[in-house]
Structure formats: structure tokens, C-alpha cells
């Protein structure tokens, strides 16, 4: 079966500093993959390669078997949605923010998008700046989903949220992944979140792959124990 993403000897260097060093790994289709690592381990850099917000210094990244360099980045980015660590809302109402992703969408479609992330239609008229962090992140998620992506890249999406909002967003994404069949690649350094979310796991340390494989295995436990020491 073709993998969702394949990394083949991928290197990323920024101003002579290694960010990712000779990374080779696969992210399978049909899973919620968690990319874990301490701060500066290269996990966000790995994620940004998946929708070509960055490109590797050397090596190849493939999406469903095709070299990303051969794909139109604008088409790719609508197939591979992304939610950032800090919720990014543009000026105006929630409806206006959602229209940035789908300019032709009517009120019903926007309300459905919000319902998918467990927000009521009354949010459409709310000003983005007035929302809580959790609400804003849900709007960002709804906006990404309006592009009908095959994959969602989530870059520490709960880092700025309080624990209750964190758990709630996790649950929403898990439901989305199971019911909408959207593959999810979720970046985090939160050890509890890793155990709650991952069914496939990638652990990075200083730009190298410490582990890549099923989340339930003795090797995964060893990698997480090593990561826990580093995070502490």
C-alpha cells in the first residue's frame, strides 16, 4: 500500500545549521500519526515539508508516491490542509475568515463547517479577535476543512490552549479522522497527548529519527521514555 508521505534521505539545513539530518521514514495512510520531539527537534520543519511551505535541502518527500517537487504547490496545499500552533485569524467575522478558504460558500455550508468542529452557527457573526484561543483554533480547523483536504497537518494546535480546550480539540480531531476519513499528522511534545492520540508514531531528536512505526510497540515505549527524559 502506498504511504501517505515518504521521506527519503531528507536533509534540511538553515544557515549551516542542521534542522533535519538524513531523515528516512514513512507516514502510512489511514492513521493518526503523531510526530513527537522536544523543542528544536525538527518536528515542525518535518511537517512544513509535507505541504511545501519549506523544501528539503537534499532528499525527496513523496505524497502518495509522487515526488512533492512534481506537484503544483497550490493544488497540493488544498489537498494537504494545515493548522498552525498559534490560531491565525484574519480581520473580520468568523464568516469572513471561512470565506478566505471557500469564497463561494453559502451560510449553510459555513454553518456545517462550524458544526464539524463543534461550534454553533451563531459564531458566524462573531468577530475573530473576540474568540477564545480554543474557539479560534476550531475556526482555523473549520477553515482548513472547507478546502476538503485529504490530510490535516496539525502543528502543536493545542499548545496555546488550556487543558480542557486541549482535550476537547483532541476529541474533535479524532472524530474527524475516524468519521471523515481525513488522515491526520499531529505534532506535539506533550507526553500525555502522545499516548492519547497516536496510533502511528514518529519520534525525532536533534533532527534525527529516534523511532518511526506503530505507537504500540516496545521500541515506541523506549523512544517515548528517551523523549520524556529530554522533555523533562
Amino acid at each position, binding site marked *: 500500500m502506498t504511504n501517505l508521505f515518504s521521506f527519503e534521505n531528507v536533509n534540511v539545513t538553515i544557515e549551516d545549521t542542521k534542522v533535519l539530518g538524513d531523515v528516512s521514514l514513512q507516514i502510512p495512510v489511514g492513521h493518526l500519526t503523531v510526530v513527537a520531539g522536544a523543542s528544536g527537534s525538527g518536528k515542525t520543519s518535518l511537517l512544513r515539508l509535507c505541504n*511545501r511551505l519549506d523544501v528539503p535541502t537534499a532528499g525527496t518527500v513523496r505524497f502518495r508516491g509522487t515526488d512533492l517537487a512534481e506537484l503544483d504547490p497550490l493544488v497540493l496545499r488544498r489537498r494537504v490542509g494545515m493548522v498552525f500552533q498559534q490560531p*491565525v485569524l*484574519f480581520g473580520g467575522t468568523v464568516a469572513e475568515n471561512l470565506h478566505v478558504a471557500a469564497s463561494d460558500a453559502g451560510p449553510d455550508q459555513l454553518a456545517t463547517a462550524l458544526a464539524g468542529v463543534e461550534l454553533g452557527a451563531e459564531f458566524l457573526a462573531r468577530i475573530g479577535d473576540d474568540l477564545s484561543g480554543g474557539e479560534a483554533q476550531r475556526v482555523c480547523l473549520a477553515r482548513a476543512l472547507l478546502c476538503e483536504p485529504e490530510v490535516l497537518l496539525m502543528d502543536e494546535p493545542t499548545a496555546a490552549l488550556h487543558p480542557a480546550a486541549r482535550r476537547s480539540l483532541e476529541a474533535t480531531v479524532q472524530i474527524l479522522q475516524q468519521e471523515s476519513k481525513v488522515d491526520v499528522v499531529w505534532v506535539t511534545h506533550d507526553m500525555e497527548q502522545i499516548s492519547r492520540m497516536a496510533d502511528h508514531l514518529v519520534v525525532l531528536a536533534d533532527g534525527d529519527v529516534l523511532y518511526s512505526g506503530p505507537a504500540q510497540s516496545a521500541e515506541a515505549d523506549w523512544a517515548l521514555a528517551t523523549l520524556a527524559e529530554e522533555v523533562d
Partner: protein
Amino acid sequence: MGQGDVDALGLVTSLLLIGVALAVSLGQQLRLEKQLVWATLRAFAQLIVMGFVLAWLLEPGRSVLYSWLWVVGMVLFAAWTVRNRAPEVPGLFPIALAALTASMVVTMGVIFGLRIFPMEARAIVPLGGMMIGNSLGSTVLAARRTADELTDKRPEVEARLALGYSSAQAGRPYVREAIKTALTPRIESAKAAGLVFLPGAMTGLILAGVDPIDAVLVQAAIMYLILGTAATTSVVIGLGSVRRLFTPDHRLRRLVRKA
């Protein structure tokens, strides 16, 4: 003194307000003293050199070709200044040079083609200077603000890119803001012409004894050309900067905020 002459005492007196500004800067710890002194000395030195150059250019029998060469030099210096003010924008010099050159060709073509002024050294150099000098501020601001906007709003720009926007679409709201900021002083200046201040060329012509209505018409033409030049170069520089700040595959380049 009289009829536009100024002696050493008059020149020193004109520096009084600079002295006040220096005192305010020191008192309020604005740290502008060095820049104020440098700008004052540099402007004086440049104007003295300009005076000698003009005197040389205006000598009877001197070819106007030298005046045009001087204008070419001004355009090159202006383009170099734009590039230096926004060093994080790669390849800005050729864009600035093309924009300023094209604007100069059009404006000087209008001024001398329609015989608003005779094509003589005494008109070519000062008018060229006015056009370039007035558009330089807006052009530098357009480049600077575009780079700053894209640096400051990187998360927003990348959020748009992540939704499948092209670099031109993703950068549009920010370059629009940058161009608006760059042109606002020029637009406000045009709105205030005649009400708040009397523009330089008109004042000069009236002082030289030209009929005020004729002076006003000449000034209006010059003002429109200055506004048009500033607007055109700012838009070209703003849009050009956006193109240079993104890669061809619609990624925002890494930008380092200028200290």
C-alpha cells in the same frame, strides 16, 4: 541681503530650529542627535557640490547632454538608495532602476515634449531632481513597508499560502497596505497644495516675476507628474518586492527583521 541672497549669518540663523530639535532629542533621549547632525552636514555638502555642478552645467555653450548624464546619475543613486533601505528584498536594484527610469522618461517627456519648460540645463537638472527626490521617499517606503509587513505578518501570509493561495494572492493585502502607507504623505501633500503650503516651483516662478496664474498652471502640471511618478514607482516597487520575497513555488522566503 535681499532678492534671495543669504549670508553666513542668515545660514547660521536658519540652523536655530535644528538646534532646538537637537536639544529636544537630548532632553527626551530620542537618540536622533547623530542622525540630525549627519543629515544637516550631508545636505549642506551635497547642496554646495550641486551648486558648483549647476554653475558648471549652466556655463554658456555647455551641451545639455551633461545635464542628462547628471539625471542618469541621480536615477542610479536613487535606485541604489532603495536597494540599501530594503536589503532583505533580493534583486531590488534592477526593479527600482527600471521603475525610476520609466517614470523619468515619461515625466521628462511630458515636461519638455509639451514645452512646459525649455530643454535647458537650468530646467533639466532641477526638474529631474524634483521628480526623483519626491518619488524616492515613497519608493523607499513602499519597499521597506512591504518587507516589514511580510515579516511581521508571516503567520497570516503562510496561513493563506496553506489554504492554496498563490504568492501574489497571499501577499496582496499586505502590499496594498504598504503602498497606501507609502503614498499617503504625497496624496495629503497634494490635497494641501495652495491651502497649507505654496509648492516650491510656483513660489520660485512668482518670485522670479512670472504671472501667478501661469505659475499655478506650471505647478499643477509638475505636481501631477510628481504624484504620478511617486504612485507608479511605489506600485511597481511594492509588487516587485512581493515577487522577490516569495520563491517561484509560492513559499515566503526567510526574512530577517532589520535592526
